[in-house]
């Protein structure tokens, strides 16, 4: 018997897609039954009250959660987000209901052994409700009380060799695409760099010292499956400088219909026979390809590595061998000042362990600048907008490169500096007036 009536939520228990309502009810039931005889460290009816407060929101059309207070674990400034219900008498099981962020492994592969351990821990010391995973990438434990925070952290570190993730004005838990672990397009080892930088910058991740949040994301190729270009202050996108490798036989097999274009991604509709001219050559944004007499040629010099041809014919076309990353900076969601995509700041850099160039020539100079000049709650992208891409180029100590812009400025409002102008700016009006009367 459910503790709260949930007539509105129950309408979300039909239809084909998995129902989160059914799932929470299942957990509520499991806790109520407690077949394993667990000594729950937070209220046993937490899930029932969670459904109850959500039903109330469905009725009121408004949330019933309040701002978090300052809660956390000793020595860390992030990883825990305080959360309180605004109807604690009605829903005591979720009156205090804090979130913990658990740093996910790069690539998000898991053993069941590990996952089951986390489940046991969170069932025991929390609500049993999670996000697999949160928007930034962490495993999210939803709902526990303040006294349990240190306990969960202690067990995570001691039993699971596992740390918390980031929150607040610090480095947020970096994340990556599946990469070379299971993708032929990956131009570098996204998991390796993601893990290395996460661990190398643990201090920045746990102890907020930045003006605002900061995100790294690692995309193995320009397909951008982790959306780094839209979501991270520093976006690492795999690329290559040499030639696309062509398997001429496989090209023939695509043209002949033996291989399905785009790995069979369009199999749900009859699009007609594959037409390499129309589907590959004509769609190339730089028109650097030619197909004639059964042979595909690529003018690699003019290629912008957009991935389309490779996506369409993965068995015939492969990424080049001289690989690295393109680095873009400053992406962010609309708050405060409108959304920004990442801006290209490094056309190419090798991405090999221990990543010294990336750390010392890119990340750390940028952090130094941002920590020095960034205002409170100013994202890197906003600082870039405020001080200009030129300033970023100075910070990086690189030469300006037309690859950093889509087009040169159309306004001629150039802010020359005094030392760039012959003779400087100091002039004598009286000297001028000798030649130019008032």
């Amino acid at each position, binding site marked *: 018997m459910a503790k709260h009536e949930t007539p509105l939520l129950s309408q*979300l*228990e039909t239809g*084909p*897609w*998995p*129902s*989160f*309502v*059914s*799932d*929470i009810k*299942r*957990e509520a039931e499991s806790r109520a039954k407690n077949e394993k005889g667990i000594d729950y*460290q*937070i209220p046993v009816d937490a899930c029932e009250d969670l459904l109850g407060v959500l039903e109330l*929101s469905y009725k009121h*059309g408004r*949330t019933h*959660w309040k701002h978090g207070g300052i809660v956390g674990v000793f020595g860390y400034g992030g990883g825990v987000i305080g*959360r309180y219900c605004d109807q604690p008498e009605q829903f005591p099981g979720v009156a205090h209901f804090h979130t913990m962020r658990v740093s996910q492994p790069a690539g*998000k*592969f*898991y053993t*069941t052994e*590990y*996952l*089951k351990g*986390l489940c046991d821990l969170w069932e025991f010391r929390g609500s049993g*409700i999670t*996000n*697999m995973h949160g928007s930034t990438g962490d495993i999210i434990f939803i709902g526990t009380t303040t006294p349990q925070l240190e*306990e969960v952290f*202690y067990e995570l*570190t*001691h039993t699971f*060799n596992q740390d918390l*993730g980031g929150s607040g004005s610090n480095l947020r838990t970096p994340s990556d*695409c*599946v990469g070379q672990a*299971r993708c032929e397009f990956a131009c570098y080892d996204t*998991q390796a760099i993601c*893990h290395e930088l996460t661990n190398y910058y643990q201090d920045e991740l746990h102890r907020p010292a930045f003006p605002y949040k900061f995100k790294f994301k690692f995309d193995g190729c320009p*397909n*951008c499956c982790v*959306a780094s270009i*839209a979501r991270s202050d520093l976006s690492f996108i795999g690329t290559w400088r040499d030639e696309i490798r062509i398997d001429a036989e496989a090209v023939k097999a695509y043209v002949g219909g033996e291989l399905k274009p*785009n*790995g*069979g*991604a369009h199999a*749900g509709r009859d*699009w007609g026979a594959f037409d390499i001219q129309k589907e590959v050559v004509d769609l190339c944004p730089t028109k650097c390809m030619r197909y004639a007499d059964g042979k595909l040629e690529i003018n690699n010099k003019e290629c912008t590595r*957009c991935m389309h041809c490779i996506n369409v014919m*993965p*068995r015939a076309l*492969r990424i080049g061998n001289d690989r690295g990353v393109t680095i873009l900076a400053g992406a962010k*969601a609309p708050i405060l000042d*409108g*959304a920004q995509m990442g801006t290209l700041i490094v056309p190419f850099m090798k991405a090999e362990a221990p990543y010294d160039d990336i750390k010392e020539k890119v990340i750390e100079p940028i952090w130094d600048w941002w920590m020095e000049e960034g205002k409170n*709650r100013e994202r890197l992208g906003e600082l870039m907008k405020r001080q200009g891409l030129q300033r970023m180029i100075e910070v990086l100590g690189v030469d300006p490169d037309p690859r950093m812009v889509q087009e040169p400025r159309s306004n001629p409002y150039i802010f020359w500096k005094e030392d760039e102008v012959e003779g400087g700016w100091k002039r004598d009006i009286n000297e001028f007036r000798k030649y130019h009367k008032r």
Partner: protein
Amino acid sequence: MAFVSSGYNPEKPMENRITDIGPRHFEEFYPPAVKANKGKWLYHEILEPGVLVHVSETGDELYTVRTGGCRLMSVSHIREICEIADKHCGGYVRFTTRNNIEFMVDSKDKVKPLVDDLMSRKQDGGCYKFPVGGTGAGITNIIHTQGWIHCHTPATDASGPVKATMDVLFDDFRDMRLPAHLRVSLACCLNMCGAVHCSDIAILGYHRKPPMLDHEYLDKMCEIPLAIAACPTAAIKPSKIKLDNGTEVKSVAVNEERCMFCGNCYTMCPSMPLADDVGDGIVIMAGGKVSNRITAPKFSKVVVAFIPNEPPRWPKVTDTIKQIVEAYAKGANKYERLGEWAERIGWERFFEACELDFTHHLIDDFRDPAYYTWRQTSNFKF
């Protein structure tokens, strides 16, 4: 319940403390076939919706079965995932960026039993627990945020609209009939956790009423200068208020004409709540993408300025999305993303094709760059 210690001693927090160890190393969690073939993959193929094979230079094959997941999941559900992974996959499993669950097996004969097992599992109300799909030129899981289940600033729920939308789009989760993949995302407020601003279709929670001012508590609960500084349009200024009981308190005043309801002030100051049952609702955006394929990444555009919250199933939202998806399926060329289609035919045709009204709210009026979205050419379609 009795408090059970983990071993942590609150008197001596530094005793035996372990910190700064980061996440577990990814290699511990790689399935053997991944470990053996990492960096050697030659190509992949989608065998059927939700089922991929990756083939290695070594000749090894790795079969992946992708199933939809609720980002929000209970430990019971995760244990069931583990049970399946133990049974079929040697105890390994993976999650995707879009909250899908991937079960991997190393030979083709293991695929069908796995798929059958996954599709056979249903929740009490009849929903699939592990629907197989979300690959190729179809619709995969909706990236979303917390909504009313756990967030203090949302203008709509997250899991509810997502469930309702995925029910409506389920056939396209299970199929690959679209011109290209179509990414749907939801953010319950403008903070937009997740790349909602660059999605083919974005569902965005939005307030439409300026903050209420809890004058009596404002100065006690908030740092007034931070609340003032939080406003992107400088609509907030300090003020002094005389309460009903005659005492004068420090507070703020809001120039409501300049408010565009972003809620930043509320993020900084709990005494400025915006939420409202009829003020809040959903904005539909369309045409964004993050891939660099063919064209550069694009921001999503606002195509429906407001739909009221209609819990539990948000029918107007799901109808609108279905309309857009069907118009796109009908109109776009093979490989063309939704935004590329809209740009090719022109946004004037997009609104016709999707049978959406073009309203004045869709015209950008935020800051200088707004101007660049207006039409500065005589080239348009009647």
